[in-house]
């Protein structure tokens, strides 16, 4: 649409509204202040009632339209998230009740007690009994919410089960790097000063630590259905956030301060595709903390698979160590083909980001 035409239309509407407003003011001066006040009182009183009814219908309709677009119909994809969902519903019932009670009272009183000839306002400065009641009842309701909330909170933030697998996830502008400990089950030491993208060392692994020699860098995060996973979260540059909406969890990635998060995936990606009816469904990792110009494109993918598929996937990967030192790779023939895993580790996200950014 032509912007000038649009602005002209707006201006015309303004002028019309203004003329009406001016005219109505003249009329009200002619009618006398009291009479015009009574009239506008009646109109606004009915608007109060109308807004209340339209608002409640609107809220119902909005829920009907949008509730199915949220994550609730598909349920939590992690076992821990189920409790968050039930906690949410409990809070919703309590606040929903208060919401209806107070909003209906507010607009109904507005309508009911609008100024009328002969009505006298009821002089009521205070009443200790009712004030005490509506201090204590919210306090009790909130205590319930705090108790339930903290029970879940301590469970979620508590120690992960002993059998958990460990995955390290590191944020950088603008993508995620996933590191798996390999067969020795431990992640090797690293230092940000050793980071060297060109030498296939995006995380600054200390190659003197043998625990690093078998650490692997897949391009997506692979998790096993039903197996708890502990994420060790870090950042190379600014504060990012590992957002896992389907699992109902998130945790910041802070440079210099590692954080952790654990959960148990409930469904494989394939199962979710079936359950949601969306063949392109992915568990997306969302960056939830503003991290720069391409924050919105910092997408990661979690593939939840069965144990067999997971083992297969891991077996396919070469440790990053061999990418940094191709000559140490036992399977390397005299003519090695570049360093596929290394490139993918540093560059996985970059092309995706560029693709979006250059659009």
């Amino acid at each position: 649409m032509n912007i000038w035409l649009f602005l002209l239309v707006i201006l015309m509407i303004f002028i019309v509204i203004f003329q009406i407003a001016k005219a109505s003011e003249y009329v009200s001066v002619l009618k006398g202040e009291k009479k015009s006040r009574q009239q506008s009182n009646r109109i606004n009183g009915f608007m109060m009632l109308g807004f209340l009814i339209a608002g409640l219908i609107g809220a119902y309709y909005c829920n009907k339209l949008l509730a199915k677009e949220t994550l609730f119909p598909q349920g939590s994809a992690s076992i821990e998230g189920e409790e968050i969902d039930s906690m949410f519903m409990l809070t919703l019932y309590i606040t929903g009740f208060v919401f209806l009670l107070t909003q209906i009272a507010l607009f109904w009183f507005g309508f009911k007690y609008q100024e009328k000839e002969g009505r006298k306002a009821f002089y009521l400065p205070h009443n200790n009994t009712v004030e005490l009641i509506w201090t204590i009842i919210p306090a009790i309701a909130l205590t319930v919410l705090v108790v339930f909330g903290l029970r879940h909170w301590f469970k979620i933030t508590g120690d992960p089960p002993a059998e958990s697998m460990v995955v390290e996830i590191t944020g950088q502008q603008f993508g995620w790097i996933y590191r798996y400990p390999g067969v020795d089950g431990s992640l090797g030491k690293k230092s940000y000063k050793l980071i060297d993208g060109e030498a296939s060392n995006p995380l600054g692994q200390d190659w003197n630590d043998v625990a690093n020699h078998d650490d692997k860098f897949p391009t997506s995060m692979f998790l096993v259905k039903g197996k708890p996973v502990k994420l060790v979260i870090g950042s190379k540059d600014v504060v990012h956030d590992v957002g896992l909406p389907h699992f109902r969890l998130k945790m910041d990635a802070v440079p210099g301060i590692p954080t952790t998060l654990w959960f148990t995936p409930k469904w494989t990606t394939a199962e979710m595709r079936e359950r949601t009816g969306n063949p392109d469904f992915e568990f997306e990792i969302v960056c939830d903390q503003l991290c720069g110009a391409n924050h919105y494109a910092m997408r990661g993918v979690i593939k939840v698979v069965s144990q067999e598929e997971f083992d297969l996937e891991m077996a396919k990967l070469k440790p990053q160590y061999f990418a940094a030192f191709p000559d140490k790779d036992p399977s390397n023939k005299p003519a090695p083909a570049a360093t596929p895993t290394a490139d993918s580790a540093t560059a996985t996200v970059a092309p995706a980001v560029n693709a979006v950014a250059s659009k």
Partner: protein
Amino acid sequence: MSDIAMNPQTGTMTVPDVHHDEHGHHHHESFVTKYIFSQDHKMISKQFLITGMMWAIIGGLFSVFFRMQLGYPDQTFPWMEDILGRWAEGGRIKAEFYYALVTMHGTVLVFFVLTAGLSGTFSNLLIPLQVGARDMASPMLNMLSYWFFFLAGIVMLSSLFVQTGPFSGGWTAYPPLSAVGEMSQGSKTGADLWIVSMALFVVSSLLGGLNYIATVLNMRTKGMTMTRLPLTIWAFFFTAVLGVLSFPVLFSGFILLLFDRNLGTSFYLSEIYVQATQSALPNEGGSAILYQHLFWFLGHPEVYIILLPAMGMASEIISVNSRKPIFGYMAMIGSLFAIAILAFLVWAHHMFVTGLNPFLGSVFVLLTLLIAVPSAIKVFNWLTTLWRGNIRFTPGMLFAIGFVSLFISGGLTGIFLGNSALDIHLHDTYFVIAHFHIVMGVASFFGMFAGVYHWFPKMYGRYMNNTLGYIHFWGTLICAYLIFWPMHYEGLAGMPRRYYDYSQWQSFKQFGGLNEFITIFAIISFALQLLFVFNFFFSIFKGRKLTTPNPWNANTLEWTTPINAGHGNWPGDIPEVYRWAYDYGKDGVDHIPQTQPVGANESHH
């Protein structure tokens, strides 16, 4: 102005002759001293209000720009390039500039509009008038408070025009993004200007706040005990206390950030590798989380700095227009006090997902949800004030009722977010945007509008146009709910804040249509605010003139001054106060002004 002093014996103000009895010709004010470097609290409040309105238009326009991007991510608008130049090359806002717009929108509205524009306007206007003082404790500092604010605005405005663009790291300015120039274009010169501007703003707030506190405590007229103060004054008082105690912490946080940026210190920086230059920074041992603690130590009280004045004004306006005393006056003060105390003890609820110690987190959950108790008391008391009243729907009253509605809606979602177990899912999603825009953004705006419509006659001796006021109110209320209500659902889909484009995401692209819907109503809402601005300026010059000094039949002292009060407020002696401000409908009398002595047969409440 040290020539105004309190007489401890009588409690009355003794003012040198210039202020006494001969109002009207004693000031010999030039244009500059009357309209620009004025020391009259009433003029300073108008300066704050009009400057705040200008900033509100700018900040609102920014939101229209970024809503265009969110509503129509796949379209181009050549006119945007006409306005924004290279920031919207080809008619589509660049990602970097999108973040600059988001950052500026937040900073401008939170600080310049809802802090300076709200508190600055109404604390200045109402504190001396309602406590019965001729001016602020220090009119000179008061004037400086405005001019530091103005200066802060100039610096902020200039940052829009620097080569690398305005700051784009969000209004919270978390380091390292805000501390290291290589991390983003906006973190270069724009960030320095942003910090300098905010530092100036803190100075302005402190000068204003100290003045408000001193005036409320020391300059009340005879008989105006603390428990006879209107609730507006209590609200402004607690607001000022919050600001004076928390802004210095923010100031130190910003100065350390400035050091990290320019002097090579490591307060917030540790173990950072810059992707853009492929190099590691030397900084070690700092903590990015330290900044968040310092920031939110102000940042959370700040939301109450924004909200409390709106609460105070809504209380007063609802009582006046219901023709009933505010229900539970002491409980209203008590709950304001409780909110003010708790405001300092809940800051870390913004940081539940930073890796905060879970036990510490649990303490903050408890304290955060505790705020719901005084908030609930306030809501119930407002409702009871309306109950069996005789309600007059002036535009001010409508906005006060709208404020209560929005405060309920937005306050209840705070119970979700304050519970860490839910916050870990909802943090930084659109649920948060919906929550704080309703409860702190729109609700406080409604409080501000209520105040402007209600006290406009006091400010300019004229009325604003009622019909435009009604259109403004109903239109804005409907738009506010249509914009922010559906956002809760986006949040429940996990949709993150501050994304430039959602169309690449499997999880969020289903909301394309909804985002367009929201954008349309955001634009309509913006247009309605322009209607208000028009009404405001038109009415200053052409509004219906006041014929009585007390147009709403209110009890408070500001309506005992002449219609156009000069510097010094009362031409004669300052009136004495004999009762609280809320004797409406007592013993069958419509209203009894505070200046009327208690009669022999009057009932006690």
